[in-house]
């Protein structure tokens, strides 16, 4: 009976005591032939982004049946992404040579496992649950590409691009397990939550794995939200663009004149 508990540690900055939290809503599910009830507890409602936000940490811990391996997958909702691709022009100059559309792709995709995914799950199971980059590669549609080899090449580049932005990662051996007094297996993982992860809802899925199959799974949601002035400014930029434009120009003009006055008084400018 695995239990998923997502705990968000707080980031405290010098100028603020703002808390950054995580929403965890546990949903019990049935998987495979195992009958189990999942429970979860949330320490915080959600991750809040204020002016001093610089990322956070997310911990996932709970109980599982002894002898099961675990996979933790954190993803954002799937959508399509348009990116510029570089290619050689005239055999020697690297230029943007067009755009590629990546469909059925999450903006955020992190997978952690107790052991190497290929050692604990069959290819079919990985594909069925879209666990790991090879499975994601089959799940994603890329256009325009001429053949599978080209698709594979651009998917690799896509992962490199996302890893560079710290929103895609896949690693193993970082989920700690131990046996408790009741003979249950406790598991725990703490991972950095990158500040590059955009506001929105994220899905955390924990898979209990045995004999190359997923035998149980549990899901929870993590909500990342802008608050305070950050939210107000982002909203104004989108909903009142003319006023936002005038404000930006006004502040820039004011700052320019203001500094000029300071220098004038100080005799720095002339």
């Amino acid at each position: 009976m695995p239990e998923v508990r997502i705990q968000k540690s707080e980031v405290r900055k010098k100028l603020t005591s703002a808390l950054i939290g995580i929403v965890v809503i546990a949903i019990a599910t049935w998987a495979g032939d195992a009958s189990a009830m999942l429970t979860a507890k949330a320490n915080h409602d959600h991750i809040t982004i204020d002016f001093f936000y610089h990322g956070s940490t997310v911990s996932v811990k709970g109980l599982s049946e002894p002898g099961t391996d675990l996979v933790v997958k954190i993803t954002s909702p799937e959508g399509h992404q348009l990116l510029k691709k570089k290619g050689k022009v005239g055999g020697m100059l690297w230029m943007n040579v067009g755009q590629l559309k990546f469909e059925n792709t999450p903006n955020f995709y992190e997978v952690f496992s107790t052991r190497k995914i290929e050692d604990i799950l069959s290819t079919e199971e990985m594909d069925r649950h879209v666990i790991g980059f090879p499975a994601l590669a089959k799940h994603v549609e890329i256009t325009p590409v001429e053949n599978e080899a080209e698709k594979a090449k651009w998917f690799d580049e896509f992962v490199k691009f996302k890893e560079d932005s710290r929103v895609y990662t896949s690693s193993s051996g970082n989920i700690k397990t131990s046996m408790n007094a009741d003979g249950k297996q406790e598991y725990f993982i703490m991972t950095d939550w990158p500040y590059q992860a955009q506001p929105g809802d994220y899905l955390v899925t924990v898979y209990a794995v045995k004999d190359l199959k997923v035998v149980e799974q549990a899901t929870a949601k993590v909500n990342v939200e802008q608050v305070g002035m950050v939210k107000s400014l982002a909203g104004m930029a989108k909903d009142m663009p003319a006023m936002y434009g005038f404000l930006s120009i006004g502040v820039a003009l004011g700052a320019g004149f203001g500094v000029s006055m300071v220098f004038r008084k100080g005799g720095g400018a002339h």
Partner: protein
Amino acid sequence: MYLYLPVALTSINILIPVGLGLAVGLLSGLFGVGGGFLLTPLLIMFGIPSTVAAATDSNQIVAASTSGTYAHWKVGNVDFKMGLYLLVGGFAGGILGVQLIKLLHAMGNADFVIKITYILMLGIVGVYMFIESLQSMRKKTNTVEEAKEEKESAVGRFLKSLPLQTHFVKSGITHSIFVPIVLGAFVGILAAIMGVGGGFLMVPIMVYMLRMPMHVVVGTSLFQILFTCIEVTFLQAYTNHSVDFILAVLLLLGSTVGAQIGASFGKKLKAEQLKILLATIVLAVTVKIVFEITLTPSLLLSQVGGH
């Protein structure tokens, strides 16, 4: 200390934008360039999305050029009349340049044209300014004056034959109003194609084609850049929602101070020294772009938008 940027959707150490703003503001006050051709790629390097970097850069240039224009105006180095004619031409050229870019995008070779235009314009301007400044520094003053007179007489006959001649008191020159308008339009077209303010093109054009004194060139260029960037900032905020107000404030904290220091420092340098310094920076940027397009990039994908 880190601050979260609400439009760029990223967090940045505040020392980075303040420091970059200070450095670019210094160049702005010294040479009369906006510095977009330097700052935008640097912001992208520090993780700012390209569309936000370009738009926010325009916003901070408004502050830096206000500060710089004011500093130069106080010492009488802004030719407002010339600046207005250049603005009229630049505005018309900008509209034409945007249409040209649309056409190039439709033809599918916009990026190639932009990159090659960048390299050619920067390379030509940089090499010409560097050699000319070096020669001027070496030659005796009278020899330079003679050479200038010879050049002026060759081009001058044609320019003087143009209608609507007017005297620009601050610069001490006489031109047909069509000369700054056409040259402004030329820079406007290139600036629109290259996605930059065009200060590094406008400065050499004022020096070598309009024959304006270098110190008036810097102040007048900043005046012209100020209005161009006000327009660009508003359009970017209104149509693309890509101006990050917080990033702009951090940048302008540095750039406004830098522009004042630059304007003050510029007075202590001779015209030839200013030109050769600007030429060196322009050439360094050219070399950087050449490396960029010849060496295999680490990432073959990038965000849509920006330069």
